[in-house]
């Protein structure tokens, strides 16, 4: 009975995963037959300034998007967990970005950020009416903001669920001890959310390695190479320059880093996390 699942997963997931390692040692233009070239791709890719820059940008995006999304999601999650009626209404509205595909959000933001006919022009604020996407110094920050717009709703949902599971008795006890709101937050809410924080952070960090569609549609990696993070570098190398060997090297790096980060954070959080998180779904 497990055969169909194993066959499909094997052929279309495991074989490609091994294939990407093999292809990273081959030269292939996407049309003919791949030819074995040994470590040539690796040497070429790892000394390519474009790829090195992509690594730097990926690191920046990973750290900066975590620094932006994690506190905002946490704060919103705590806020959404409140039982007040207006917060329930707000929670419904917060959910709306999740209805957008990455492509849809990126296209909407391209229009919204237009310096002449977009939001900035409408509000008459010159500071907002910049060429956000065309300016290499700004484009990366725009990308980070739009990523946040798309993904904060998801993570705040995780935090909302986490906060609602904190036993009320903890807060009652703290109240009796005279702890204020801020103290309650730092001494009860935050420690109790430990596993949610780890789960959410893992998803954010591993997700940073896979942001493709959003950036592809929003900036295409540009202007120049200003937003060309590793997944884009991989796509552009493979399907624009038809250098599949180089694309495969980048893919192997992505897999190794992705697996490494998830395993490290998983160990950090305890192996039983998945099981215990499933309770109560």
């Amino acid at each position: 009975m497990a055969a169909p699942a194993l066959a499909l997963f094997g052929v279309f997931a495991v074989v490609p995963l091994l294939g990407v390692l093999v292809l990273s040692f081959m030269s292939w233009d996407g049309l003919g037959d791949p030819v074995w070239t040994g470590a040539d791709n690796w040497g070429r890719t790892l000394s390519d300034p474009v790829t090195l820059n992509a690594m730097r940008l990926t690191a920046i995006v990973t750290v900066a998007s975590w620094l932006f999304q994690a506190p905002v999601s946490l704060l919103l999650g705590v806020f959404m967990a409140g039982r007040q009626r207006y917060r329930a209404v707000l929670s419904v509205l917060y959910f709306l970005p999740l209805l957008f595909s990455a492509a849809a959000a990126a296209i909407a933001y391209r229009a919204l950020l237009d310096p002449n006919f977009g939001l900035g022009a409408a509000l008459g604020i010159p500071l907002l009416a910049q060429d956000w996407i065309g300016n290499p110094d700004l484009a990366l920050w725009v990308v980070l903001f739009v990523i946040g717009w798309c993904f904060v709703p998801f993570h705040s949902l995780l935090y909302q669920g986490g906060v609602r599971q904190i036993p009320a008795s903890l807060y009652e006890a703290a109240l009796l001890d005279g702890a204020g709101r801020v103290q309650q937050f730092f001494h009860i809410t935050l420690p109790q959310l430990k596993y949610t924080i780890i789960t959410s952070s893992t998803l954010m960090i591993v997700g940073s390695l896979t942001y493709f569609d959003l950036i592809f549609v929003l900036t295409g990696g540009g202007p120049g190479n200003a937003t060309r993070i590793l997944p884009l570098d991989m796509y552009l190398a493979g399907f624009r320059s038809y250098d599949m060997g180089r694309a495969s090297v980048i893919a192997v790096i992505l897999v190794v880093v992705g697996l490494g980060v998830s395993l490290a954070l998983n160990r950090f959080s305890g192996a039983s996390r998945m099981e215990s998180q499933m309770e109560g779904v």
Partner: protein
Amino acid sequence: MSARAARVVRTPRTTPNVIGGLAGWIWLLVIIVPIYYIIVTSLRPEADYYSESSLSWPSRPTLDAYGEVIANDFLLYFGNSVFVTVVSVVVILAVSLMASYVVVRSRRRSAARMFQVFLLGIAIPIQATIVPVYYLIIQLGLYDTLWALILPSIAFAIPLSVLILTNFLRDVPVELFESMRVDGAGEWRTLWSLALPLTRPAVVTVAVYNALQVWNGFLFPLVLTQSAETRVLPLSLWAFQGEFSVNVPAVLAAVVLSVLPILAAYVIGRRQLVSGLTAGFGK
């Protein structure tokens, strides 16, 4: 499941949460302004886009932009997306439920090992395997067909689906399976009339999660299809942007139309959609 019973009622708060409240209202603006902008712009006549302020309500609201999008084969792309999503989700559910059943019921070591393989599969970034998937699809002669999207989508959805269904199926009391066997039911019958009904909430969660993933998927269609006949919705948005470029209201009307089906699903089954989105990670 069991933890649901332990849900607790929060005590009423004493002082208002100023920081949380402020963040909440600011974030509301961040969410609402772009959505408002998308809607009003999609209702604006193309000519007025350049003359009216972009946040004002259109002086002459019109559905022309929507008409133009629909006249440009939108329904074909929509149909493609529906086909790919429905076929993928049905197959994902069938094969994952069968595999989970084996993981839970089989006492063989191989079943446990298979589960381990699936667990590892969750951490694979799909994007990273696109080059070999492309090679494979060409070799199979499936390039530029909808099956080129369906087969890899199914494969990459299996790990998380099996994980969720297995965790759920483990909570079914062993006695129920035993009594089915005593009654002479075979494995298939047990799967169909015991496992499936009892895991329905998890099946819905898995279905919703995967439907969203497949529906919104962009990279597979971008790389594995080419012609307009096999174009799916997210890719069509990108293509519209290239074709219409100056007709921003039409581009944004296409965005709105692409969101509507999911909005409808959200209105009909909000709980299921939320649990589906946070599948395996929530709570």
